């Protein structure tokens, strides 16, 4: 394919994907729509993280913290913090908080980008990990602003779109409400909100990365020395990448707060930062389309892994200690009341297998398939 053909093909795939996103809720249950809303939210965070890590080569193990900043910005603007003794009154409608969440997180990202200039590789990974570790304690420290460990309840607030939903007569049907003349259930609304922002974020990331800025990012990733000698300012592009990336995470965090209708320090645990990194590795570093699969992975695998053991009723064997057979690897003993260890092990094994089969992530698979098609056409035309 020529670059022009490639671009047309890309547009076509994106348009087809947008159509699928639009009609999907017709084919899934109301609750599933909520699950897929979380996929959209994770996609936004993964796009941001991939700009930083995949394209600019700066590892961040602390993106959950930027999500927390966005999430708390949204929650505080909606619910206010006067109830804890803070200065901010309630009253901002949920969707208007999202740009601010992105902005605030983005500024934190820029600010963090400056000291990060002096760090690279493993040291940067550790420094970013430190913010993820410090975030929950910081939130608790400023209890009068953040509500401390108890968190901020958003459910039922008038600021939450759809909180005025009317329950229908049938107890099995979900409550509905209207926005701009369209009728939504709360779950469908969340789905469309998350995915319209996610698709816009995707297009935005593509625009940033295709031109001069994206080239500079890749130059920094591939060789800092070469980048500097061709006139790319390391300071400028590294901090820019941090800023953009954190802004994406902030918007995702704000949406996460709206979708959960609740935030507390544990809404954004350290594990979230690691899951996000796993998401971009699975999706493929330095690519955008594979991230959709990465987001599905982040949203569903832990749930699926838990379903493998905890099912509908609690099997006492798993809780109390039992031998579980795993093909090829043999028998494992899970023991102790606090160790329904199954889910974590299932998760780990799937991850390892995936890295064996798809070393370049799903994005790498997409590229291989694309190349195969190009090669065939090339050889045929010869």
């Amino acid at each position, binding site marked *: 394919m020529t670059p022009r053909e490639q671009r047309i093909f890309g547009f076509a795939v994106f348009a087809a994907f947008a159509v699928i996103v639009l009609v999907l809720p017709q084919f899934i*249950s*109301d*609750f*599933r729509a*909520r699950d897929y809303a979380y996929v959209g939210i994770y996609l936004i965070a993964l796009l941001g993280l991939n700009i930083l890590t995949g394209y600019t080569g700066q590892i961040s193990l602390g993106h959950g913290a930027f999500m927390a900043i966005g999430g708390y910005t949204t929650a505080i603007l909606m619910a206010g913090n006067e109830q804890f003794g803070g200065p901010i009154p309630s009253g901002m409608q949920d969707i208007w908080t999202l740009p601010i969440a992105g902005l605030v997180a983005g500024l934190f990202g820029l600010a963090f980008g400056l000291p990060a200039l002096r760090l690279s590789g493993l040291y940067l990974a550790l420094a970013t990990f430190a913010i993820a570790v410090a975030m*929950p304690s910081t939130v*608790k420290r400023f209890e009068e602003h953040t509500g*401390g*460990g*108890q*968190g901020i*309840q958003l*459910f*039922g607030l008038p600021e939450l779109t759809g909180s005025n939903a009317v*329950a229908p007569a049938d*107890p*099995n049907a*979900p*409550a509905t409400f209207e926005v701009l003349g369209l009728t939504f259930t709360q*779950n469908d609304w969340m789905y469309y909100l998350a995915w319209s922002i996610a698709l816009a974020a995707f297009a935005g990331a593509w625009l940033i990365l295709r031109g001069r800025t994206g080239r500079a990012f890749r130059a920094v990733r591939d060789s800092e020395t070469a980048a500097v000698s061709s006139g790319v300012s390391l300071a400028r592009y590294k901090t820019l990448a941090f800023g953009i990336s954190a802004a994406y995470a902030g918007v995702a965090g704000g949406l996460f707060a709206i979708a*959960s*209708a*609740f*935030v*507390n*320090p*544990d*809404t954004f*645990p350290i594990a979230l930062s690691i899951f996000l990194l796993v998401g971009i590795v699975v999706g493929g570093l330095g690519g955008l389309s594979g991230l959709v699969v990465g987001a599905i992975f982040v949203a569903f695998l832990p749930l699926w892994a*838990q379903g493998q053991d*905890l099912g*509908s*009723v*609690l099997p*006492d*064997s798993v*809780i*109390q*200690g*039992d031998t579980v057979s795993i093909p090829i690897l043999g028998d494992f003993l899970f023991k102790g*009341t*606090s*160790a*329904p260890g199954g889910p974590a092990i299932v998760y780990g094994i799937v991850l390892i297998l995936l890295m064996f089969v798809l070393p370049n992530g799903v994005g790498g698979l997409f590229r291989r398939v694309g190349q195969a098609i190009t090669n065939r056409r090339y050889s045929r035309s010869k």
Partner: protein
Amino acid sequence: MIRRRSAAVAAFGAALAFVLPAAFAGSTADPGISATAVVIGGTSPLTGPAASYASVARGANAYFQFVNSRGGVNKRRIEYRIVDDAYNPAQTVQAVRRLVEQDRVFAVFNTLGTESNLAIRDYLNQVKVPQLFVASGATTWGRDAAKYPWTIGFQPSYAAEGLVYGQYIARARKQAKVAVLFQNDDYGKDLLASLKLGLGRSGSKVVAAEAYQVTSSDVGSQVAKLKASGANVFCIFATPTFAIQAYVFANRLGWKPLVVNNAVSGTSNIMVLASEGGKNRLVEGTVTTTVLKDPTDPRWKKDAGMKQYRALLAKYAKGANPDDVYHVYGMAVGYETVSLFRRLGATPTRTALMARARSISSAKNPFLLPGVSVKTGKGDNFPIQQGQLQRWTKGRFVAVGGLWTSKRN
């Protein structure tokens, strides 16, 4: 003539037979109820800092399985879905939405933790799904029943419990100086406030109070500060992991106060752990309160209820430690739930469930101490309002005085 009439009757009968079931089926079938099962669900900390509470869900589940093996309640099996929330309210929110909207449970049952239940209460009351027998003693479950009609508690409120400790300390020690370690949420604050109320103007007072966060790793610095206050009574209002730490740290610091430990950690299995194999003498003399029969207490060796408890646990929760009192709690709440469902009759609805839950009169729960009744009614939204003070003496609990009863909450 006669034949025509009987044909008409037959036709009418046939028509009725078709129409009637349809009319009934269309009327008020709430989610989670089928001809053969009633599905309930709840979260439990199967992992995380409060994982020792997972035994509660296991105990309840064992009791439900026993009832199911006998044909269930009104010919319906009770299906109890337990979801892990790692004692993290953010996870509780998602898990409970999943239970309600995807698994379509009839009621959310015995979800554990004050914060977790606060995080889901607004949601459940909006969608009108019962939040039945909340596994937390926060006073708000009973106090705010008018505002949250779909929520009801179970165990004695922390307000009642704290009051009893205060009154006990005022009686037992003159001019006591009390130091308090408490969890920084409604649960800890309820206990602390009512403890002060119970001390009243007796001359004994709280000289130091230190909070810890659920997510913190240990309570070492808090215990050190409390010791420095010079107190001679140490109140531990903490969940099991932190309570055990409190005993260990206080002992290492050489502090020898009278210890009052709250009911959620004042169980024999926790006391044994805290005693560090007999090395920690601080546990001796610890005062706490309970409503449950202690499985390690020789008094209940031949008790019918506890015999059934051990049999059911061995059969339906293989490998579970029968000395773990939380299993008894689970069975006690399971027992009340089953009798509640029995009283609902053949066509249970969520509305009827809450109405019945607010008019319980049950005096014979085999897993609760004799004399402890489960009772709700007009103006009384606290199911259990009694308890028994007990003292840890040479490796087991000994009752102190008779049952206490709380009038208000």
